[in-house]
């Protein structure tokens, strides 16, 4: 039962044929060619597949592609089309990532937070990025970078 879904991906309207058992993450990466969201755990625990869907961060490994029909999706590629955002600059300055696998999820989680609240506290930052697992950095530099943009 193939169905054509239409979504806005990083500002562009895209149409793609999906099966009801296709996962959004796979469709965005393999069929629509946007590679920043990553497969980590595949069960909602790690955050590496994060996308912003209709203004909110979601775990795209737990969303059927067919559910995303008509939605608006933003990934890191869409955030920085006009150059790095201040948040991304801060991540660079603080050397916040090593391998970078968690970076797209962390970046989107922090972006959502900063859009809702310009000056979050350290604890609010921790809560916002909880569930985005980083196996490299110990989180401190990531949090420091977000705090710096929040000031």
């Amino acid at each position: 039962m193939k169905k054509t879904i239409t979504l806005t991906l990083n500002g562009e309207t895209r149409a793609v044929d999906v099966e009801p058992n296709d996962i959004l993450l796979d469709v965005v990466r393999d069929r629509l060619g946007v590679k920043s969201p990553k497969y980590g755990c595949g069960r909602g625990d790690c955050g590496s597949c994060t996308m912003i869907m209709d203004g909110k961060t979601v775990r795209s490994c737990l969303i059927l592609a067919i559910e995303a029909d008509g939605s608006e999706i933003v990934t890191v590629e869409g955030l920085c089309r006009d150059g790095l955002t201040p948040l991304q600059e801060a991540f660079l300055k603080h050397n916040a990532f090593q391998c970078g696998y968690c970076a797209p999820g962390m970046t989107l989680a922090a972006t959502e937070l900063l859009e809702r609240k310009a000056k979050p506290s350290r604890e609010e930052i921790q809560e916002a990025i909880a569930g985005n697992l980083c196996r490299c950095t110990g989180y401190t530099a990531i949090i420091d970078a977000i705090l710096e943009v929040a000031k």
Partner: protein
Amino acid sequence: MAIALEYDYFKPAELAEAVALKARFGAEGRFLSGGTDLVNDLNDESVRPEAIIDLKGIGALKKLEMTSTGLFLGPLVTFSELIDSRTVKSRYPLLWESAREVASNGIRNRATVAGNICSCVPCMDSAPPLIAYRALVLIRGPEGEREIAAAEFFLGPRKTVLKDDEVLAGLILPRPPKQGAAFLKQKRYRGEDLAQSNVAVLALEGKEYRVVFGSVGPTPIEAEKIEKLLRGKAMTAKLAAEAKKLVRKEIAPIDDLRSSREYRFLMAEVMLERGLKAAADRLKGKGPAYGTHLV
């Protein structure tokens, strides 16, 4: 990664249509709201439906509003929407505190309270507060609507009273009592995790208390012996210590991946003691602000 199962996908625009589809597929039809449990179940094939019925096309199910009988909480309301609701924070703080403890923000943006109780895994965070508030579950089936108390809704792990042709059509929380509330959840680490154990405590006027434990038995447990002991008494450290002694008579935890049985007993005792103090203080307008971590 990819789901190996094949099934049909439906997205009805009306509740009646969803009910008709469910009647048609019975146990082989599964409702989809946030999907944070269902997609995992499809991945590991613990469910093998023929049809998935996505409820997100039904606008009426997204409502979250005060009515003359209380708060109507539609089955599509997400945890993030609850957390953002001033009404929920100010009038149902127990539910508000519990919503903040669920998983991570990226999950709370999709996952729904109704989905949480329909999945009915023993560690669900929504059930204890709903029981403590005496919530009603509205259930729609081919023959019409019925209502059931939240306390009666849970039959066992992953088993509720919903029949194969029924859908959870909403939750009603009666108008809020004057209350002090506290929801405490023990996890392996701060941040996202399922509960090792949790407890919902309400202190009401007239020295009434409600205590509901979660994740320490097959279904949520209202601690009636503890409530009886506390009834009519002002909260003191001594009284809380006496209540603590009854915990082992109320709950029936197991050893599992997340916690030993003994640790669950110990933490349930500690959480009860702290929860009673915080709830009683909050009833008097004192105590820690709602949202403060008590464990």
